[in-house]
């Protein structure tokens, strides 16, 4: 990974759902290439015999009793939403986006 093309930045930006300007795509392509070069060294030391560690402490599943407890006030939550209607979040069209 010696460079990250503008096409790759644009592809990844689409995956990440971030609208970037042409200027941003151009700039990130240069800046990320520098970072990518710097981090490429890790694959040299990460030999197959080394197990991967995803977390600093061993994770265990934490369970609790299935009890009904008071929850956050929906009205308070919805008051912070960009838009709401009839006690629900109001969002743009999701289905049939091609229409």
């Amino acid at each position, binding site marked *: 990974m010696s460079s990250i093309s503008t096409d790759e930045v644009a592809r*990844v930006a689409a*995956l*990440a759902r*971030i609208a970037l300007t042409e200027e941003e795509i151009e700039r990130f392509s240069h800046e*990320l290439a520098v*970072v990518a070069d710097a981090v490429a060294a*890790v694959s040299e030391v990460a030999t197959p015999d080394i197990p991967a560690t*995803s977390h*600093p402490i061993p994770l265990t599943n934490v369970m609790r009793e299935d009890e009904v407890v008071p929850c956050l006030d929906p009205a308070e939550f919805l008051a912070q939403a960009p838009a709401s209607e009839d006690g629900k979040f109001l969002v743009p069209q999701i289905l049939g986006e091609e229409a």
Partner: protein
Amino acid sequence: MTALLQKTALELADMLAAGELTSVELTRATLDRIERLNPTINAFLHVDAESALETAREVDEKRARGEKVGRLAGIPIAIKDNLVMRGVPTTCGSMMLDGWLPPYDATVVTKVREAGMPIVGKTNMDEFAMGSSTEHSAFGPTRNPWDTERIPGGSGGGSAAAVAAFMVPLALGSDTGGSIRQPGSVTGTVGAKPTYGAVSRYGLIAMASSLDQVGPVARTVADAAALQEVIGGHDPLDSTSLDAPVPAFEDIVRRVGSDLSGLKVGIVEQMSTDGFEPGVRAEFDAAVRRLEEAGAEIVSVSCASFDYALAAYYLIMPAEVSSNMARFDGMRFGLRVEPEDGPLTAERVMAESRGKGFGAEVKRRIILGTHVLSAGHYDAYYASAQKVRTLVQRDLDAAFAKVDVLVTPTSPTTAFKFGEKVGDPMAMYLNDLATIPANLAGIPGISIPCGLSEGLPVGFQVLAPAHRDDLMYEVAAAVEASAGDIPGSCPAKDWKDN
């Protein structure tokens, strides 16, 4: 500045307990100083005078009635703006959350409230805790009280500057790659990253969940230790919270004497080479010599994996960032921006909101993270980085089998000037070189001021094995005591009013 605000949190706590001072007087003095200095320093994004004074009044009344209150009851505190507080603006330094009022309190906020500590406000930070200079805040940079042309470190520059400028005796920060310790280093304050899980992360707006840790910002080791006693402990709301009792850190610090014989201190070879400013190196070496004079045995240890830790961090962190930032989608809370033309679909609204709401550094890390996690790159980068994490843990285990603690300079440089590194991501990332291994391995680390280089503070880092925060505080207190009256070693002694 009144002499009052130069006192440490524990000195003030003693005065409150003895009835020589009321929390209302102290909180007023704090608020007055914030009002006077904040226009210059920009350490606070939000000040909540009314609520702080109300808490202060309640604590004073409890004391007057003879009710038992906590050790730090009545001591004002500032909270980094990535910790949620019900009904109080919480922005993470981002336009994405401008105007958002969280519907609940972070566990550490609940603990601070229960301890009777007046919360005076929310402190400035790099956007979503991404940065090493607080230049990436959407609400303008925080200035370093030692020199306002210079950065206060990041991402917790606001908390560090607030404490360094005597606006508040204590603050909370969060440390993902060094964001408590590096600002501590460049502002001459004490910043501690506890063992991963020792302090709850519930209500901390996540940046990189396997690395993030909430911790104390203070002017002395004893103050930081006392604050960790307040905020530490098991939290059923955080599945990664450690289920272990909180040691009496303040008592441990108090018992530290001048004789360090029997203590083995490891110097990491990989942190002894280039990359550290000569002035930083000189102050660090002088502090090590003082430990040796106090009887500690200095041992050189090798942690070969540290050479790869920064690179591994800059794969793991953005990967987790890209995942955590997905929640900012413009649908349920925060900013929503609709595209000016074309169909109004969820996907386009999401992309537009994130494009407008996030600043350059956040976008850069999301793009890098999405790239390293995408098909064809995952094994070479993310999985390899996780293996380096194993190597770092093994190296630390081997080192701690030989020595009690490891020490390094906290930051390779003193505070640099604004704009110096903002256009060069790698130069900025190198700032976290010495702090990152602790986050990868989950071990505790603390930065203590150890002297001045060309008039600017230099930080000394102590790393201890996981779950040995007590040992970290003990050795840090010894380093602090050995520094004595060296300028910058304890800013409370040296601060000139301005």
